């Protein structure tokens, strides 16, 4: 007979099953919690999209993307706070369950920003400048 831990022995076979089910439910629900905006990876964007822009126009585009990204990050942070409150008060991520998932927009903005930076480094500075 295999060794059984004290906790499992105390809980019995039904208690151990319930514990596993609760842990699985918690892991699934935690996975639904909104991600931090910083941890979202940029999407792959081709820098050729900015081929028609001049260098100053690309600077303006970079500023526009930075502001858009800040707005999206603010929204995503609010989602996280709402999810945390949902967990403590309602035991589920209430906000993420009923609003749009904006992770893909954040990833796209980050990817576009990187593409503009690459295009500017190549065309406006003639060198692989690191920003």
């Amino acid at each position, binding site marked *: 007979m295999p060794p059984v831990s004290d906790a499992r022995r105390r809980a019995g076979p039904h208690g151990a099953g319930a514990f596993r089910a609760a842990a699985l439910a918690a892991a699934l629900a935690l996975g639904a919690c909104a991600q931090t905006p910083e941890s979202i990876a940029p999407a792959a964007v081709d820098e050729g999209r900015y081929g028609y822009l001049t260098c100053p126009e690309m600077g303006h585009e970079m500023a526009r993307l930075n502001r858009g990204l800040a707005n999206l990050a603010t929204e995503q942070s*609010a989602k996280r706070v709402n999810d945390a409150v949902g967990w403590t008060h309602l035991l589920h991520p209430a906000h993420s369950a009923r609003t749009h998932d904006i992770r893909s927009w954040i990833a796209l903005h980050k990817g576009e920003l990187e593409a503009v*930076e690459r295009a500017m480094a190549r065309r406006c500075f003639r060198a692989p400048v690191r920003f």
Partner: protein
Amino acid sequence: MRRRTGFLHGLGAALLLASGCAQAPETVAAAPVSEAQYLGWDCAQLRFEVGRLDRVLADLYVEQRQSRNDDALGYVFALAPLASMSGGDLRHQIALRKGEHAAARQAANRRCLHAARF
């Protein structure tokens, strides 16, 4: 045993909620913003931009401090950071404006004479 579990749940919930509280504006680090954003700008435009960003940052500081107060009140009366829940935590905006301010100043220092005026 049950009391200890309750304490741990309470502690976890408190930590989770405290992490959602609006950050003090002074402690927000500047976001990395490239000086290339100001490519093609002349000195007058850069000076105007630095002044504009100063005013924007001052406004954001006021709003962020208000959000901190509202979060504290929210914890007392509703056990939740009410301002941060409704998008009142402006740390990303403050970080961006600080980064833009630094980049604009750097561009002005590099391109303009009498940059010490900034």
